[in-house]
């Protein structure tokens, strides 16, 4: 079963990571490595910061673009992992190991599979 692990944190909060931002990068490398070796990682990426975000809405045939994320919240989406796990317990275990879990929030959601 596939699960998305959506990584949320307040921008700048990574400064408070134990060991500093460099340690965080190292921990992310280590995590990705471990997840790949365990066969649970299908994909994963970090996103550029919110300042690079653009939001698009199309209503009544008209498209509008705005600068910024879809909503102003304290914690914002910073990256994701797509995990292949047997159940929610396995998924939350892996999600809990993502370094940002220490100071941010990881949202875990099952991916919809369409049977054609």
């Amino acid at each position, binding site marked *: 079963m596939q699960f998305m692990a959506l990584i949320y944190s307040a921008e700048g909060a990574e400064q408070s990571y134990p060991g500093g931002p460099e340690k965080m990068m190292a921990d992310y490398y280590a995590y990705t490595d471990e997840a790949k070796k365990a066969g649970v990682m299908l994909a994963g990426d970090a996103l550029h910061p919110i300042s690079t975000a653009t939001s698009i809405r199309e209503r009544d045939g008209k498209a509008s673009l705005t600068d910024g994320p879809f909503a102003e919240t304290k914690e914002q989406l910073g990256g994701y992992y797509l995990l292949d796990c047997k159940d929610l317990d396995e998924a939350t275990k892996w999600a809990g190991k993502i370094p940002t879990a220490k100071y941010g929030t990881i949202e875990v959601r099952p991916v919809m599979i369409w*049977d054609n």
Partner: protein
Amino acid sequence: MIPIEAELTRIVRANSGRIVSALIKSTRDFDLAEDALQDAIAQALQQWPEKGAPQNAGAWLYVTAKRRAIDLMRKENRHNAETTQQILADLDADQPDNAEWDQDIPDERLRLIFTCCHPALNIDAQVALTLRTLGGLSVREIARAFLASETTIGQRITRAKQKIKAAHIPYEIPAHEDIQVRRTAVLKTIYLIFNESYSALEGQSLTRDDLANEAIRLCTILEQLDPDPETSGLLCLMRLTHARRQARIDDDGEFVPLEKQDRSQWDHQEIEAAHTHLLQAFAHGQFGPFQLQAAISALHCLAESWADTDWQQIHALYGALAAYDPSPVVALNQAVALANMGGTNKALEQLNTLEADLGNYQPFYAARADILSQCGEEKTAQIDYDRAIELSKNQVEKRFLFQKKSALAASLKK
């Protein structure tokens, strides 16, 4: 209710947790399991009045529900073809049809309780689902107990089942390294159900015995299936609290504070039994917050009066509890114990540090008023009694505090 219906209700309540837990294991479907059981109950209502309840009525219900589950699986295509075939094969292999009424219903209740109390479900959902599937309470009974509408409870249960399915919450007993944390979550849910039965409405008091008894029953089952000292701790805590219930309410149906309760109305036999059980739990040497709270409760229950209570031990126990639960309420209770031991000045110091956190908590002002009064600080005691009376939502409590305030005023005039 005609006699056979009453008998059936009793049998259903006693067996439904086990039946549903077994059917969910086979079919991997909460709704289907429940539907199958409901159908079996309907069949029982039709057939039993004539011939009377069968000998092993629980097993009868289980086998009948199982047959219905097989029918439903074939008809309804809830899974893909391969999964359905697998499930049907498992169900058929379960036991041959003619060994029917003597067999035992498989016991998967541990899986069920850990799933119903999974932290991924919100607490209201956990409570409703546990009472429905394990307790066998009807949606209506749960709604009445929680003073909610049937629609609300029904929706809560439906959403919980949907989340279990959609988020792939596994129907499993947690792995060894996780079980302690998960068990704590189960205990908290059971304790919430128990405490619901003691919640007092404004000006009134309500003991919903059914809920308290159900919580005790669920904890007893959990203890049997998964022995653990904290589980025993919670069970004893609930039994000890429940043993005092007759004295908690006066003839007007109002709540009576512990200090004023008529201890002759306590169920001392039950207190004795629960106390013995608690000592057995302690023997394992694996302490925890529920065992500590039970010990505090036991000390109150065993004391002949408020004045005779072993405040020294209670003080020490609250200190130990604070290590697990550093909440201001625990600190408050510890300070009260200290004051009752004679350490009134130190207790006052400690209480004053808690005012910021407990500014709207009536027992804080009531406790500080008592201690100030003992220290001879009459004027400030009066102020605190007034604040406590103002914050109290309970008539008997207000009267009790007012009496103390009046007694203090009377002593001032001398």
